[in-house]
């Protein structure tokens, strides 16, 4: 009898243990809805193997188990609300920063030795925010009905062609089963994985929702009235489709996979609510996010500053700047917030434009001694103290970032610019005073930086002139190859996988770092257009192509080091500082805020933040 009782007791204990191990916890807000029968219980809403918070490296955050509740008030700058919100707190990646891929939106992957066949495993039981399952059907739809549909995709994007060559064959997508699909290329294309992991999952839309705008699933008779309502011509369903689901369109309750779902927008205020089907849990099995609601306010700089100081916001996404650092600090206690300096990818740089329409300038800037001289003429420490407090030296491009005006003068004299005019400015090879036009990008702290550069170059005898024009005009001048030197921000040193086009001088993706339009088009067209580039440039582009095909970390590191060496030797771009800081402002009541690392990342990590009660 006693033995039986013991066995029974043990059995009960085991059962309790097992069931509590399997039990997930959810927010009280959702628990009431489950009790009312509006939502299925949490075990059914989460995938069989839920994800974890992995986007922030452990050394950058002290992760705690949080508490449910609260409304996060986020402050946005004056621009498009969508840019700043879709990304910061609602974007989810396959990619787990900083060194691994996998265990994100997709559970995992497999790649063959050749880097040409990628098999992706999805999470069984994962659902969109309206409860509909997230399966390989969503990917099949994207591939067959969107990418391969000529009306929706006029030109097949090169990112999905083998090794990103424009004339290569496009990828093929095959569904293996409900939660597995495979992408195949006809040659090695290692960088596809990393690229797709970081940027590629954006075009994926909930197939079940989007099908209502696709004639393959909804008859045209039903679409015609919608097309007309949207103001397009009869039959132009693809315009309606793009308009309805393109980035930036405000669609409340659009099914998403992000932690918060868009609910409402009134004037400058946008409201979000937690996604009841969010697929991540914390280490104790609590479904994320902890925070129930999010409210973002779009505002102007002055009003924004006032709100921060008055303690009316909990998270400042991107609209804080180092200019106001002293003010932020002064009112930290009164406003109830913390100011932290984080790393940013907005690294200040000067870009030398090589293939311009001015032959005199091309001759001058083509000489490496000129570019080195400009680098030596910059008193970077002064720029750091005025504009980028907390930044560090030396830079990695050039590695010799010392301030040496004597050397600068020497190099300029050596290369033949030793004759001066009546005012003491150097004459160019054509005998006229060399005037260098600085055209800064009008954003961030570029203009103060450029103003200082504008004052430093004349000290080695180079006459400069700075013009500030609107962003669109800058871009059209880049296209017209009229710019000479362009101060800007954004040339961050790439981390693994080193697949960045920031330094290539001219590809169609990032016009903001174009500097060698003719060389680049020569290289890309195989010699048909443009101008033959220097050997170093060709070598660099070759190395970059080689980076595309492999995933081997050692090989990638080696190739990148070589590219870095070329960049350091040629100095087509020079950096002004490194590790420029950017303030992150969070409420004192907020927990699980990263204390170091990149501020953009910290902004996007609201899924694990919580309010201490």
């Amino acid at each position: 009898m006693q033995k039986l009782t013991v066995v029974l007791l043990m059995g009960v204990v085991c059962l309790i243990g097992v069931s509590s191990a399997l039990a997930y916890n959810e927010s009280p807000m959702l628990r009431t809805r489950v009790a009312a029968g509006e939502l299925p219980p949490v075990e059914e809403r989460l995938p069989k193997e839920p994800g974890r918070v992995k986007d922030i490296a452990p050394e950058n955050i002290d992760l705690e188990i949080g508490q449910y509740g609260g409304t996060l008030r986020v402050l946005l700058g004056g621009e498009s609300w969508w840019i700043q919100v879709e990304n910061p707190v609602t974007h989810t990646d396959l990619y787990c920063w900083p060194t691994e891929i996998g265990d994100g939106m997709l559970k995992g992957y497999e790649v063959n030795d050749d880097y040409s066949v990628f098999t992706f495993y999805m999470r069984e039981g994962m659902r969109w925010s309206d409860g509909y399952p997230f399966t390989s059907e969503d990917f099949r739809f994207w591939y067959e009905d969107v990418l391969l549909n000529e009306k929706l995709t006029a030109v097949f994007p090169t990112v999905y062609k083998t090794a990103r060559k424009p004339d290569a064959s496009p990828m093929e997508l095959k569904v293996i089963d409900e939660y597995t699909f495979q992408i195949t290329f006809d040659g090695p294309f290692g960088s596809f994985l990393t690229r797709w992991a970081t940027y590629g999952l954006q075009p994926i839309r909930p197939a079940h929702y989007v099908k209502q705008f696709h004639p393959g699933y909804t008859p045209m008779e039903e679409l015609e009235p919608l097309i007309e309502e949207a103001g397009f011509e009869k039959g132009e369903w693809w315009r309606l489709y793009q308009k309805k689901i393109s980035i930036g369109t405000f669609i409340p309750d659009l099914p998403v996979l992000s932690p918060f779902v868009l609910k409402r927008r009134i004037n400058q205020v946008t409201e979000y609510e937690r996604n009841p089907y969010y697929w991540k849990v914390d280490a104790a099995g609590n479904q994320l996010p902890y925070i129930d609601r999010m409210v973002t306010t779009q505002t102007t700089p002055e009003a924004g500053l006032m709100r921060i100081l008055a303690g009316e916001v909990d998270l400042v996404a991107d609209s804080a700047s180092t200019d106001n650092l002293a003010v932020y600090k002064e009112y930290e206690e009164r406003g109830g917030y913390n100011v932290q300096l984080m790393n940013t990818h907005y690294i200040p740089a000067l870009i030398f434009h090589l293939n311009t329409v001015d032959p005199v300038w091309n001759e001058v800037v083509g000489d490496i001694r000129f570019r080195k001289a400009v680098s030596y003429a910059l008193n970077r420490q002064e720029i750091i103290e005025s504009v980028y407090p907390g930044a560090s030296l030396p830079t990695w491009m050039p590695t010799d970032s010392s301030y040496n005006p004597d050397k600068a003068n020497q190099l300029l004299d050596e290369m033949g610019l030793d004759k001066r005019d009546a005012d003491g400015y150097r004459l160019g090879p054509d005998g006229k005073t060399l005037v260098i036009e600085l055209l800064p990008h009008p954003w961030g702290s570029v203009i103060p930086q450029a103003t200082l550069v504008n004052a430093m170059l004349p000290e080695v005898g180079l006459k400069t002139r700075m013009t500030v024009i609107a962003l669109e005009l800058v871009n059209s001048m880049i296209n017209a190859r009229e710019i000479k030197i362009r101060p800007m921000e954004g040339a961050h040193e790439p981390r693994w996988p080193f697949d960045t086009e920031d330094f290539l001088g001219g590809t169609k993706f990032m016009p903001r770092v174009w500097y060698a339009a003719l060389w680049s088009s020569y290289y890309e067209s195989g010699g048909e257009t443009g101008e033959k580039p220097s050997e170093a440039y060709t070598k660099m582009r070759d190395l970059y192509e080689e980076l595309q095909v492999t995933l081997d970390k050692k090989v990638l590191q080696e190739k990148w080091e070589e590219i870095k060496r070329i960049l350091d030797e040629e100095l087509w771009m020079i950096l002004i500082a490194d590790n420029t800081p950017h303030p992150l402002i969070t409420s004192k009541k907020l927990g699980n805020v990263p204390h170091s690392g990149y501020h953009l990342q910290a902004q996007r990590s609201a899924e694990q933040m919580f309010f201490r009660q």
Partner: protein
Amino acid sequence: MLSFIIRRIMILIPLLLVLSVISFVIIQLPPGNFVDSYVHRLQYRGYVVSEEEIAALYISYGLDKPVYVQYLIWMRKILLHGDFGLSLEYGNRPVNELIGERLTLTIVISLLSTIFVFAVSIPIGIYSATHQYSPFDYAFTFVGFIGLATPNFLFALIVMWFTFIYFDFSVVGLFSSQFVAAPWSLAKLLDMFKHMWAPMIIIGTAGTAGLIRVLRGCLLDELKKQYVITARAKGVSEAKLLFRYPVRVAINPIISTIGWMLPALISGEVLTAIVLDLPTTGPLLLQALLNQDMFLAGSMVMILSAFTVIGTLLSDILLVWVDPRIRYEGVSEK
């Protein structure tokens, strides 16, 4: 008089058409277009836009069509449906909706500021003129000039700072954070009034200085005239005299510009609204222009031009009605 009005209205229609073309052209003038600057801003934020997305954006905004076709489509929608198009910047929301949700508040703020201006400047102006060179006259003049000299936005910043430091109250926006998205209630109304005084006074003060000086000057001119002395000699009381004759004449310049109040009512005061972050149409227009948001900017420019023209017409009619001299001199009844 009637023929005068009818003639003016007939000219209005072709004028408005020309205005619509000009508005549209103005928006198209800067190089590039909405998608280009949109994509560049996305890239700056570290968000990579794929080629597919860029091409899709072009298609969805109809930017792949030639400019005149875009104009015709826009005009057709306005004339046939009263639909001013979709805003590119604000997530494809209808322009009508965007302007509509801000219009009421804009008009309320503008009206309150205008009432403030009149309520303050007219009495002060009259007092200044009748008690010329008295201490109060100098005091009002002094304050008036300071108000005139200080830019609106600077004044707004000072007021914002002051109330925050000494009263621990931030006057930013029209509502405190808990009321912004909440439905209308008594509490929300009270909250609005707590914030409303700031824009009213800030926008008002710039106007008062000018109006005081104008009124004072005109009135002084009138008070020196013969008929005033005659009236006094005849025993008319000072107050009755003042309001029956000189003030009526001095009001003239105010009335002739009153028509421009109409567009100002709609657009509101932009700089102050930006500093104080008011949900009015002024900042909406500014953002639309900066971002080349074609339909929103074009529509607003056109609406404002239309109201300016209509306002001027109303002003002229009002002036003719109020001032008989114009009736007899300028507008002959044929």
